[in-house]
């Protein structure tokens, strides 16, 4: 056994200490490992300085708040131009805008279909493709109002603070565009019949 333990390098065995046949060399820590430690210690100083060095105690939270504000101020720039006095005839123009309808349809699939069905046939929420309306008279602006402020009593959320106004109009236009389509499993009509 002891032959196997003849040092191959310049290692020196620590004499006098043996545990169940296990001995130990008197080697130093590898230098590169020490360098890794110094490097992480420097990083630590940097992180601490970055965190506590600023004027504020909660720099990260503030940085996030600033970023969030930037993101919020970005979108209204586009929409605010079109925002004033939308009237129904202008909105009807959206029905001819394939990009707007596509965008509205995509969001509808993501958010609205969960309750109104993927074809608007109604499920938990009412049928959106028949001519019966519970809130408003089925105009695009009526639909947009329902989306924006929700119908809290019936469990429909207000989406105004989650979806920008421009996109809400696109969703409303999309819903208008699928009105009158026919699909299987449609929910029975509810509300007031609106003839066009």
């Amino acid at each position: 056994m002891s032959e196997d333990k003849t040092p191959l390098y310049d290692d020196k065995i620590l004499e006098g200490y043996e545990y169940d046949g296990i001995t130990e060399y008197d080697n130093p820590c590898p230098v590169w490992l020490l360098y890794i430690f110094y490097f992480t210690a420097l990083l630590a100083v940097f992180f601490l300085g970055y965190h506590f060095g600023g004027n504020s105690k909660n720099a990260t939270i503030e940085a996030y708040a600033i970023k969030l504000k930037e993101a919020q101020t970005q979108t209204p720039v586009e929409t605010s131009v079109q925002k004033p006095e939308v009237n129904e005839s202008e909105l009807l123009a959206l029905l001819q805008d394939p990009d707007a309808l596509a965008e509205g349809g995509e969001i509808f699939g993501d958010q609205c279909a969960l309750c109104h069905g993927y074809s608007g046939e109604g499920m938990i929420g009412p049928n959106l493709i028949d001519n019966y309306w519970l809130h408003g008279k089925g105009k695009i602006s009526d639909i947009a109002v329902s989306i924006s402020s929700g119908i809290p009593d019936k469990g429909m959320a207000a989406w105004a603070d989650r979806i920008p106004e421009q996109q809400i109009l696109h969703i409303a236009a999309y819903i208008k565009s699928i009105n009158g389509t026919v699909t299987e499993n449609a929910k029975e009509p509810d509300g007031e019949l609106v003839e066009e």
Partner: protein
Amino acid sequence: MSSSNDTNSGLIQVKYNDQIVRMFTLATIFWATIAFLVGIIIALQMAVPQLNLTGWLTFGRLRPLHTNAALFAFAGNAIFAGIYHSTQRLLKTRLFSDGLSKLHFWGWQFIIVLAVITLPLGISQGKEYAELEWPIDISIVLIWVVFAINFFGTLLRRNERHLYVAIWFYIATIVTVALLYIVNAICIPVGLFQSYIVYAGIQDALIQWWYGHNAVAFFLTTPFLGLMYYYLPKASNRPVYSYRLSVVHFWSLIFMYIWAGPHHLLNTALPGWLQILATVFSVMLWAPSWGGAVNGILTLRGAWHLLRTDPIIKFFVAAITFYAMATFEGPLLSIKAVNSLGHYTDWIVGHVHLGTLGWNGFLTFGMLYFIVPKLWNTELYSKKMANIHLWIGILGILFYYVSMLAAGITQGLMWRAVDANGQLVYPDFVETVIRIIPLFLFRALGGVLFLAGYVLLLYNVYKTIKQAPKELVEETVQVRISSSTPIHPERGHRKLEGMAAAFTILALIAILVGSIIEIAPTLSINKYVKTENKVEPFTPLELAGRDIYVKEGCYTCHSQMIRTIQSDVLRYGAASTIEESMYDRPFQWGSKRTGPDLARLGKKYPDLWHYMHMEDPRAVIKESIMPAYPWLITSKIDFDSLQKKVSLFNKLGVPYSDEDLSDANNRAKEQAKKIADVLKSQGVKEDVSDKKITALIAYLQALGQKGGE
């Protein structure tokens, strides 16, 4: 016990207790099979939700079973087997007590059986890796104390003056695990199978991850480093590379590890100074962690030929390599920016398994191939089979890790993708799930490969034991009693190694420093709670719903913590505050988002949506991978216990109104009736006013609706 003195030569005869080691070895092998199998089942459930067959086989209940089985049953028994085997030999003495050893063994197996029964039944405290209810908690602590007495008793009657490095790691393990487990489990029972943790919200979050992270440190790292320091030099027959390195990395490792817990809570509502401390210490842990790996690998200098011939050495080298990978990735993930991408994703799951499958698994397999032939006094049945096990196992781990890394980064990037208008590119959560389902299947394949390799071990061990001689003798050695005074005067650490009690106390101090500095300030929670943010407590019915949420293990897939990250806020609403969860026992911030965050779920969907969604998630979201919970519609709410629960919460400082306090039961029934009536008017046929689904809906609709923003 069986040592006879031969005073003339100073020699005594010591007979080791190998029977207990054999028992723990077999238990390790048995429970590993269970832990791995349950892992594969839950991995498949994530790709194929229909595999959630019945209530007690749903993901939310089996996941705690998998983690507890892997941690306490597989790793636990392996640690006990290895510690009992090596400690006797390193200290040249028999274990302190045969009786305590047996009590330790059977007590621990009994605890595991209780866990296997209670977790699938949904009896859970809802804290990760600490789900077991209070009677089992108490049993664990008692058995751990038995283990400690047995171990330290052995230390006291040792015939070896100095404690070898492996023993240092065992000492740190025993002391720290006891402290972590007890502090994290302090709770108030409200029945035999239910209790509430005393800590609330941020306190609970901090203590839970102080525990959770250091379960990794002191249950999966330090004991296994100890085992490595014994079995690697024994199997390779080489001296340990550097004594000095083992001193430095031992103390730095245990001192720094304990601080790193809050890195599980980066970018959350946790105070900034705690987050930065966690980052700093996690990053600085890189070198101390690698100290163990370097000392292990360099010990093999001059013995590299064994890497071609000896499967045991191959397992050890692979284990140390995986350890080095995982302990580099850990510090990386603790940097806030990296963490903002990886947190809540499968990357973390991959990271953990790199450590558990690679480091703990392979080190244990190597140890088993080494000790089984020794314990049964024979040769290993097939070296070739052990070699095949190694390669299938490595392939399995790589499949597992690479698919989870890819899944985590893919989903993390999809969650945070924001277009030029500042809108989420993938606002629909399920879209980000569909994308990674193929990777879930690859992960399951990795698990199957890992298990397939393990089956070879089962067969190999079975054949080895079968060819063993019928009469097993316990190993007996002649020990020369070392004189109580050293030959040379000793200084510093050498002196300390001769003083077991002082060593233990110093190790305890090393882990207490970080613990106290981080935890003590949050114990007075008021320090962090802004009084102007008033929070309403959950109503009695919502509380009943919350209990269901905890029991079903919803926290294993859903977080309730919107981080201070732009994409989190865009997706889920304003960042969560400390106040919002200040009454939550246990906290439900979560650690994984297999499904979306639920912190502000309330009022987003109508009650009927939740009803249909719980009955069959795929009725409302076609591609959902969530299990269905039809039994919630038929099983009844436990109204009777609500009175007790509400008054307990009130005593703990939750401001319930006098009406709630005096009439919790009826107020819950009233609220449930209202919800059930509306559901009925919308077409639900059954009367669900006394059914669990109604309480759960009430709770889900209350999330984010109690103020405190």
